[in-house]
């Protein structure tokens, strides 16, 4: 439901934007199939603000190189609010399953900058 709603909403945004400004159409091509690395890279820019200097022990930990399963599990737990921390709960609150999959894929395949 949520996924469909979001896809519909994105298309509506895209159509409005196309008509209004002829700006690029939002690309959702990877959403239905395998994890979408490019989407993951874009969504991950939000994480970089705090996480890029993280180590295994810091309060904002390193997330590069974690397995897809681990990132997915943790992000879903934040989204469900079963894992504490309002910052992360807020970040996760708007992520669809596909977006979490894209993020998890990106971080599992990327090295710390």
């Amino acid at each position, binding site marked *: 439901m949520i996924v469909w709603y979001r896809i519909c909403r994105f298309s509506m945004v895209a159509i409005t934007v196309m008509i209004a400004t002829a700006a690029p159409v939002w690309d959702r091509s990877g959403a239905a199939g395998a994890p979408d690395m490019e989407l993951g890279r874009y969504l991950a820019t939000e994480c970089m603000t705090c996480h890029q200097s993280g180590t295994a022990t810091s*309060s904002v930990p390193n997330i590069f190189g974690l397995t897809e399963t681990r990132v997915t599990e943790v992000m879903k737990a934040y989204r469900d609010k079963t894992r504490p921390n309002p910052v992360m709960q807020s970040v996760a*609150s708007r992520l669809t399953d596909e977006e979490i999959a894209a993020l998890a894929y990106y971080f599992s395949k990327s090295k710390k900058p």
Partner: protein
Amino acid sequence: MTDLTRRKFTVLAGASLAALSTPLFAPRALGQAKPRLVVIGGGPGGGTVARYVAKDSAGAIDVTLIEPLKTYTTCFFSNLYVAGFRDFKSITHNYDKVKKGGVKVVHEMAASIDRDKKQVVLAGGARVPYDRLVIAPGIDIKFDSVPGYSEAAAQVMPHAWKAGAQTQLLLKKLNALKDGDTIVMITPPNPYRCPPGPYERASMFAHVLKKKGHKKSKIVILDPKPAFSKQALFMEGWEKHYPGMIEWQDPKMHGGIKSVDPKTGEIKTDLASYKAALANVIPAQTAGKIARDAGLADQSGFCPIDPENMKSKMDANIFVIGDACIPGDMPKSAFSANSQAKVAAMVVRSELVKSRAFPARYSNTCWSLIETDDAVKIGGTYEPGEGKIKQASTFVSQKGEAADLHKQNYKESVDWYAGIVADIFG
């Protein structure tokens, strides 16, 4: 484009900019090899956008960052410097890694923007053509918004709302205080950079006075606003750590700020007069001059943007990010500027090299330190909606929270600082 002309461009790019009054690069229409992004301002907004476009386009876009300062001192954590939690070096950053990341950094002031020709005119007269321009010049202080205040008065009554020499002056004056002295803070009207910043600063002043053993010193905050960010949390913290030391007055209590006198230190309100041993006057603010001069600001003094992409509503080739823009529900913060920069970088790449575009998403968190290991936070996520950047979710620390949660907040903020400065400056 031939090899010869490409070589010529390289030579030109490396030449002394001051010596050139003609365009640094030929216009793209005449055979420019790469599309050009020019960025004005190397703070959280400009630094981030320049680095991200250079990194993610892997050399396909020519990125030039124009910033007069060789080193940038962050306003964020400057209150912690005032309180002795950080040294000046730890909040000061250079552009070496930005350059290594493939960005050409021009240490000069941008004097104007020729929007018709799509060129930035530097203070020395050189012209830098662009295909897309991102401007992130931050704020200018409206000195005359406080009667009696001026740029010269700021040498006696520092605002320290742009970090650097002003912050060092503020610390010098704080260190010279004797027990029984009064600090008067005049806080700014909305909208201004860092909504909780003045109240974190008051907390840090109090931390220093308490540590020095002051028993009689006072901090009076004269506020033109009836309420402020995280007010209940600050007041709870002040009561807990500094009982009786900080007195906050809203306009009903002081009746209006009538004048400040840098010669005598006297500050008059409608209802009282104060002799300030330290006056920290933070006036109203406006978008950086370059943005206003280029006709990108509206009557509010800040620049309207399209929330889908951070483009100026006045010019589709120009993006305005950070404190200079009208950010809808987002506060003016380094976190916001950094977040807006990532949306702008994604859209710039999609327009210049046809990379994929995604829906804009923004986020922000502001941590404020009240006393050692006692920090509170506020934040949220944002998306385009109702013609502005609209809040999608929000959170804020609660009154009466456990001390270890606030200690954790502080640790988080320290990690955030390390992360964001690496994101901006490499």
